[in-house]
């Protein structure tokens, strides 16, 4: 992914996602029309609801932060060709670790405690990525299934801790005690917390890592052609494992952001499905760190805007999830044009005959 802006790159990173979004919005429009509202008004409400006021934009940023970090996590993992859809579990485990440090390590200055919580989250998330990662890289075990299983194991592990050893002694609900205030991400404006800034800085860092360093080239090589990478002297297994650990650490940091910036406690399912949504965010961003910044923002806009659409037009906000999925389907379907595979044989034959005619007609010119 050496950054050299060619028309091919523009097509892949900008045109394809934009067309996918437009087509998905059109499809969503049919649903809106069917529920008896005006699609244009609905979309106006979505974007106004997400970007119309400072408060709305704050909400968008808050939702964008975990999506961005988890999206980067998956983007970097997918770049190696390993479909480790493990972010959901890593968010939970990372948040749990940050929570444990933040609850029990009171009395330390915020300057020390906040980084300590973040590091704990990254180590825990990294570990959660390392286990399926090592099983995959060194024992060739199916990383997809292992990742899904680890997501659920993480979910129940968090449930166990918040109802057992880590439960708030003063409370009755299965949730942890509040983090000491020194462990909170400082607030910038109203609810906007440092996590958003962290996410953007990390995104730039990941961009630098993937696109500007030798290690990034190794990642790309593993994703592109593992055999060739091996012949070129790259330690493929090591690169994949390292990448998956970094990937886990990034998702863990997303979990830390939720706990330290927003909830200030650990409770069941605080990850709010960001880890699953991040799969789509990574794909829409075409696995490119800068693309993922844009797609995470877009995703957050839809999520926040959906609520105001629901309030005014009574259209269920879950429509947004439909639009999001359709977007990804169109992104996936763009492969169709790349591979030149046609759904109907006759189209293929027609195009072939046209091409033959043209080639036959001007062979002397092209030669």
């Amino acid at each position, binding site marked *: 992914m050496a950054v050299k802006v060619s028309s091919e790159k523009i097509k892949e990173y900008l045109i394809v996602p934009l067309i996918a979004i437009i087509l998905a919005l059109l499809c969503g429009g049919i649903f809106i029309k069917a529920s008896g509202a005006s699609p244009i008004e609905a979309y106006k409400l979505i974007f106004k609801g997400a970007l119309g006021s400072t408060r709305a934009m704050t909400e968008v940023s808050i939702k964008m932060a975990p999506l961005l970090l988890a999206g980067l996590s998956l983007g970097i993992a997918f770049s190696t060709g390993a479909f480790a859809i493990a972010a959901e579990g890593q968010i939970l485990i990372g948040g749990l670790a940050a929570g444990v440090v933040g609850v029990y390590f009171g009395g330390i200055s915020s300057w020390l405690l906040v980084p300590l919580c973040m590091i704990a989250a990254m180590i825990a998330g990294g570990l959660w990525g390392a286990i399926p990662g090592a099983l995959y890289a060194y024992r060739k075990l199916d990383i997809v299934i292992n990742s899904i*299983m680890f997501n659920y194991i993480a979910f129940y592990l968090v449930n166990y801790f918040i109802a057992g050893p880590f439960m708030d002694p003063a409370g009755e609900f299965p949730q942890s005690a509040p983090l000491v205030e020194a462990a909170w991400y400082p607030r910038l404006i109203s609810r906007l917390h440092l996590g958003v800034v962290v996410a953007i800085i990390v995104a730039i860092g990941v961009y630098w890592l993937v696109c500007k360093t030798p290690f990034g080239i190794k990642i790309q090589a593993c994703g592109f052609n593992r055999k060739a990478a091996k012949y070129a002297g790259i330690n493929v297994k090591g690169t994949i494992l390292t990448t998956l650990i970094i990937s886990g650490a990034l998702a863990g940091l997303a979990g830390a952001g939720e706990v330290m910036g927003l909830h200030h406690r650990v409770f069941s399912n605080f990850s709010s499905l960001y880890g699953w949504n991040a799969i789509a965010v990574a794909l829409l961003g075409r696995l490119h760190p800068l693309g993922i910044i844009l797609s995470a923002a877009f995703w957050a806009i839809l999520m926040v805007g959906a609520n105001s659409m629901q309030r005014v037009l009574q259209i269920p906000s879950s429509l947004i999830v439909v639009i999001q999925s359709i977007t990804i389907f169109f992104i996936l379907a763009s492969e169709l044009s790349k591979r030149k595979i046609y759904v109907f044989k006759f189209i293929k034959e027609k195009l072939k005959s046209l091409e033959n005619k043209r080639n036959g007609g001007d062979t002397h010119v092209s030669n």
Partner: protein
Amino acid sequence: MFLTNVLASAIRIMTPYLYGSLGGIYSARAGVVNIAIEGMMLIGAFSGFYGAYTSGSAWIGVLVAIIAGATVGLLLAFMSVHVGTNQVVTGTVINLGAVGLTSFLFTQKFGKIAIVQIEKLHVVPIPYLSSIPVLGKIFFNNSVLTYLAFLLVPITWWFFYKTSKGLNVRAVGENPSAADSLGIRVSVVRYVCPMISGAIAAVGGAFLSLDLLPIFMENMSAGKGFIALAALVLGKRHPVGVVISSFIFGIAEAIQFRIQIYDFIQIPVEFLQMLPYVAAVIALAGFIGKSVPPAAVGKPFFKE
């Protein structure tokens, strides 16, 4: 008495897992990864509920679920065979879309909660057999869909291991180019199998929304499809294997419900809930005999 009750509810709990994992076999054996079992179940649960609501008959609901599930299978097949996208990604997006679509349609039609009277699937005791002392209560006093799930086990086994069509499917999953050179139409197999897979998984979903308490809730399948996936892996993609693994998961869940009541087993509930997933990881790692997927699973095949 306690044991009988636990086993009886284990049989009921395992029914959707059995449907999901049996469905998974059809897809996996043809070389198409089906991560979308969860989404197919959810679609099945909604369409089953909706079909029963509009038609007034639970069985028409099941039929609607079958059609809807097969349609989702068709989508998975199209993306895998013709577009050649990563099947894991396609499956994940289907899961996401299923949550969105079902809760959109449901909220649109019924509002937040639906308390509607619809026909449910009744428990049909099998004559004579149901009066056998213990076994009768456990096995022969269930809903028809439960019997059907168990009936599908020998049928699936017979199909894959006793018919030439089944052999063809397995050949496609192991080595599509060799199968192609033998004249098997790989793309047809890879269309039909995911559709069967979707239909079967959707019946499992319909069981959720029509059995016992006919009700639909947003995201009703709630990870059951992933437990079915774990059962599929633990059962080594073999019909007999998945019955055993589904049964283990069913019994773990049945015990879990009773722990709160009896409080005699000192295991935190969460660890029992974790069991299916841990078991699948261990099975994958090869500690209970290696669970090896078909060689060509997940790889698109393009005839050239």
